[in-house]
Every structure is written in C-alpha cells, then in structure tokens.
C-alpha cells in the first residue's frame, strides 16, 4: 500500500526549496500562496504579486494584523517587509512580461507530458478566469506546477494530452505534487523525487503520462 500524501503545507514547503536568495517569485492562487509562510525572514526571496507588490512578507494569519490595503493576488492580507516596493498593475505586468520573474508557482487543473498547462477553466464553469496565470506561464523563467497528483475523484492530473482547456502550451518545467516531484524534459516526464512510502510504480499508476525514473531518484526532503 502506498504512503501518505503530503498536505498543502508540506507541498508548499517542498516548493520553497526551489527558491534561492535574490530570486523574484510569484505565487499563484491556492496552495502556492502558502509558500510565503515557509520562507525565513532572513532569506532575500522577493515575492511579487500581480496587483503590484514586490518583496512582501508572509501571509497574515492573525486578522488583527491584516491590512485591507496590503493583500496578495489571492486577496489574502500579507505582512509588509523592509525593502518592499509598490507599482501599478501595468508596471507589475511589465515586470512579468519583461522576464523578471525567476519562478512562478502555479496551481494546475492538468499538466501534459509536454508541459502544457490547463489552469484557467474549472470543469462545469460557464467560463474560465485567466487572471495573471497566462502572462506568468508565458514569461516567467521557470514555471512550477504545484498541485495534488490526482483530482478529488482520483483521476490523474498529469496526462499525455490535456483533456481540459489549454491555458499555456509547453511552459511547465517542474511538477510538485502531494506524492512526487516530476521534471518536464524534452524526452518526457522524469520522476525525480518520491514522497516517503511511495514507489515509482505507485506514482505511475496515478499518472496518465509515462514516467521515466531519474537515475538519482530521491526521497523528498522538506527542510
């Protein structure tokens, strides 16, 4: 029997390991926003949000500290951080389009083995919401999809061909899920890390697209 799945906090923790000092990082709606909680204040990671804040602090967890005029792109209050800067929306996306985002961590509905991303149109909805995700996925230096490995009813979200509406073609470079870390390579998907208790076969069974197993396959470490 397979191991346990990571909870959202643990998934965010794993994503944070990708961040290096000096990087400009944009966190998408949902699980990705949790990442801001797990970056120690002494680390110089610059969080950028679409609404124009650069270098803000972690998400506020105590409503007494919340400022309705300092929210991230998920409209969660965040803490100010020394060295923060504020720009308007056009300039915020000049930063994105100009290629200044080192990493964007996005939620995903599906990811294909070619790195195609579906993340704007939820099944059953009359229309999707693009938000800033499309600009981010087209223009960030590295796109990380952070998502549960399967849907709530157990279907694979990592697929050969998207079954959900395409948001951005061939953009995802790394997929971090609640059971594995998978790299998107020109040769297809490469299984790099397993959550403790999981085997490559068990992960493959929950993945529509074929996985190659990295020679240096690791057990995922969170800290």
């Amino acid at each position, binding site marked *: 029997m397979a191991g346990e799945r990571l909870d959202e906090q643990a998934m965010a923790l794993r994503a944070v390991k990708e961040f290096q000092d000096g990087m400009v990082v944009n966190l998408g*709606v*949902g699980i990705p926003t949790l990442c801001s909680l797990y970056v120690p204040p002494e680390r110089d990671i610059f969080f950028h*949000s*679409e*609404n*124009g*804040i650069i270098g803000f602090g972690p998400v*506020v*967890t105590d*409503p007494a500290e*919340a*400022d*309705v*005029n*300092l*929210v*991230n*792109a998920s*409209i*969660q*209050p965040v803490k100010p951080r020394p060295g923060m800067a*504020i*720009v*308007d*929306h*056009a300039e*915020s*996306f000049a930063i*994105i*389009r100009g290629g200044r985002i080192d990493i964007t961590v996005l939620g995903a509905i599906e990811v294909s083995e070619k790195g195609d991303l579906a993340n704007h*149109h*939820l099944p059953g*909805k*009359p*229309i*999707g*919401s*693009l*938000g*800033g995700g*499309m*600009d981010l996925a*087209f*223009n960030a230096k590295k796109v990380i999809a952070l998502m549960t490995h399967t849907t709530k009813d157990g279907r694979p979200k990592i697929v050969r061909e998207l079954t959900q*509406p*395409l*948001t*951005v*073609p061939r953009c995802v470079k790394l997929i971090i899920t609640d059971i594995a870390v998978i790299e998107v390579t020109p040769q297809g998907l490469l299984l790099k890390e397993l959550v403790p208790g999981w085997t490559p076969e068990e992960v493959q069974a929950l993945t529509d697209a074929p996985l190659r197993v990295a020679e240096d396959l690791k057990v995922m470490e969170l800290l």
Partner: protein
Amino acid sequence: MPVNKVVASFDEAVSDIFDGAVLLIGGFGGPGECPSYLIAAVARKNVRDLTIVANLAGWGLELAADVRERLAPVLPIPPDWYDQGLLVERGQVRKGILSFPAAPGHYLMPFERALLEGKVEVELVPQGTLAERIRAARAGIAAFYTPTGAGTFVAEGKEVREFDGRPYVLERALRGDFSLIRAHKADRYGNLVYRGSSRTFNATMAGASRITIAEVDEVVEVGELDPECVVTPGVYVDRVVVRPREPRPWHEPM
C-alpha cells in the same frame, strides 16, 4: 479661476454616465481598492447596457456578504464594499471585458449566472494584456505586440507576428468613456496617491478614459502631496469625490 476638480457628491460625479457607456472600473478584486461609492452611484443612476472593463466580474451584494463572513477570521472586510457585481446583479451590464469572470471554487458570480442565462457577453483577457491595453489607451498607443496568448484561444482572430523568432499577439488599446477609480488622497488639481495594494488597476486606469473620476479618502491642500510621490498626476483626473466617514448603504443618494 482656480482649478477645483472636487465635486460635492457621488451622484453629481457620475451624472453624465450614459446608457451603453464603457466603464473602466478600478481595483483588483478585494474591498480595499474598490471604488464602491462610485459604483453605488452608477447603480442608483440605473444606466443600462454598460460595458464593464475590470479584473474581476464582481461578487455583488449577496456573495460579498458570504465572502465577508468567510474571510472574517483572516481579513475583516468593511460593510460598504459594493463592487461591479452590483451592476451585474441589477441587470445594468451588457458586456464584460474581464480577466476574472469566473469566481474561484464553487462560487458562481452574478456575471457567471448572467452568462448562463445569455444576458451578457464576455471578452476574456489575460490580466497583463488587460492592464497593458488600458495603459496603451492612456498613453496614446493604438496597439502593441505581446507574447502572452500566442498559440492559445486568446490569439484567435488576432494577428500573430514573429519578432526575433518569438510569436507575439497584436492587442488593441482599450479606452473607456469613464474610469471609476479609488485612491487614498487627492488635491484639487486631481493629483492622487494610493495606499499599498490599492494602487493596482486604479492607477493604471487613471487617464485611460475620456473622463476619470476618483473616489478618495481625503482631499488635502495643494502642496501637501510630495511631488516625488504623486502616483497619478492631476492631468489624468477630471473629478474627485470624497468617501463618507461612516459606511453608508449603497442605495441612499449621496
């Protein structure tokens, strides 16, 4: 004659908004940056067939109450949060040019309901393209080539051209008849400063319409705003109107 862009009431501020007008509505999606009282005045005026240009389609009164309750443990939300969803709920909107027409999760925003009922049209725009199209209108640029959207549904029916080996989509400037924006402080010349994340689309939309109307917390004397820190120069602003000190219901004339 001294220039004074401050008008006495919200109803006066929106008095020339007409049926069929294109409204650029500032804010991002939260309560802190929403031009609530301008939107309420447009609702009271009951102009119809509006095209709204905004990030979100808006929660409207009913869902806002729900969101307020759900968010209370994290972000206390003021009672006088009236967003563009109010205009949608009341059937005043014919078209939305939006980045976020669909609510996240299980919510169904008034605009989604109207869409299902065939009562509104929608143009779905990537958020950065939306911001840049609005900025282009302000800046007198007719159109521009952006990489965002090439090879996706966003590029359908649009010119795609390669520059330096990368495909770019031609996008047109998006000019409004009226920009309804929210700012923190203004002077009578219309110079504006914002607070934190409330700058967002508000500053972008200032000057992108024939008429720009700013809802502000406070009007200060000319000279009080530091020229180095003015975000929106008054040249972009036509009218300024001050928010009430105490929250007021949306339907009361003011």
